């Protein structure tokens, strides 16, 4: 294994989306052709070794994914390994996004008082929330909103059909969290 090949493996392992060969070439300071050769070589080695994962070229980039032969196990994992019910935490997070959209992850986290990265990722994967804009301020945080599919599943036509909150007034800390957005870390 060359340093470049190891670097490709490392980067693809932590990437959440397919990585373009151009980006890898830039990172490794080698020509794109060289990246494509190396990726092909790696993909072949996994195949030769009969690994449970493959390296594929999709959507203009490279990514690791599970081997098609292993689909039955992955399906079992999906069905048995995941929580099938919406947790109270997930529902609260979804509710905040629904009522306060567009809202950043940091704002949701500040309101709930806990880290919401995992929950937000799950909600996004399930197609209930999506990125809708970027905060124009410094940092340009991603802002989230709910999806059409979310409305459909709740049987609502538009967001205006969400039950009104009436005269309920959120606490000052919530207002502050929404106004301030991200706070500097300790």
């Amino acid at each position: 294994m060359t340093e470049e090949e190891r670097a490709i493996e490392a980067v693809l392992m932590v990437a959440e989306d397919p990585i373009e060969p151009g980006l890898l070439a830039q990172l490794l300071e080698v020509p794109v052709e060289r990246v494509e050769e190396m990726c092909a070589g790696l993909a072949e080695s996994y195949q030769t070794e009969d690994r449970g994962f493959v390296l594929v070229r999709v959507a203009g980039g490279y990514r690791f994914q599970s081997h098609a032969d292993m689909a039955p196990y992955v399906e079992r994992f999906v069905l048995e390994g995941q929580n099938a019910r919406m947790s109270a935490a997930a529902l609260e997070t979804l509710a905040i996004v629904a009522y306060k959209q567009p809202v950043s992850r940091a704002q949701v986290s500040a309101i709930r008082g806990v880290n919401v990265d995992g929950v937000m990722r799950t909600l996004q994967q399930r197609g209930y929330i999506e990125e809708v804009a970027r905060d124009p301020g410094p940092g340009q945080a991603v802002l989230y909103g709910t999806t059409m599919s979310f409305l459909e599943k709740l049987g609502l036509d538009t967001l205006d059909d969400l039950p009104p909150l009436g005269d309920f007034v959120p606490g000052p800390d919530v207002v502050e969290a929404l106004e301030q957005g991200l706070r500097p870390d300790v």
Partner: protein
Amino acid sequence: MPYDVATPVFEGPFDLLLHLITKEQVDLYEISISRIVDAYLGELDRMEHLDLDVATEFLLIAATLIELKTRRLLPGRDDIDLDEELALWEERDLLLARLLECKTFKDAADVLNRLAAVADRSVPRRAGLEDQFLSLTPDLLAGVTADMLKDAFIRAVTPKPLARILLDHVAPIRASVQDAVEELVDELPRAGVITFRHLTQELVERLEVIVRFLAVLELFKEGLVDLHQEGNFADLTITWLGDAAVTLESLSVEEYQG
């Protein structure tokens, strides 16, 4: 005591005290409570933005230190009160224990930091499921109604009660230092020159004496009194320097109170 230009930010009174004492470690047998107290008060002086809670904690420690240092100045020294003596040692041991605990966790924090630094060099894979499996995942919104969503929102944004830090143990000091300053501003102009022993001879509680001492230091800081001591263990003489018209508002004692 040398003063670093790049003063570290002290996270609390133990932090500061630990720093001051361990800095002196080179001259183990040279360490004296007097130097520690001086350095401690010096640092207190340099701190400009003490918030209330921090200030009271610092003062509490300062009071204990000063008591350790000034036992000789206290009245009733001639016939030592054994109970008081024991109480003082107990207080000192408590402070020592808390310093050791503080040091222990400081060192533990260093190790956690090193572990985290090593772990940070690797990044976990969190890519998640490939698209073709997503349809298999159960619909989490099944059975969830819009009203449940509303309830969840209200639950999420309703302020949760914050755990309260018990400050009862520092409250008396907080109140008394200012009270003592007030008393002194009233009493000292009339006395002109007075010894600390005389100033405190009617006080019964050890704590009251310490509080008075802190108040005297406060006035000294303000340039309203001069302090003089003939020799190492002689009486501390307090001379009023201000004019009689000093108003309490002009004193910066507010930082000690709520």
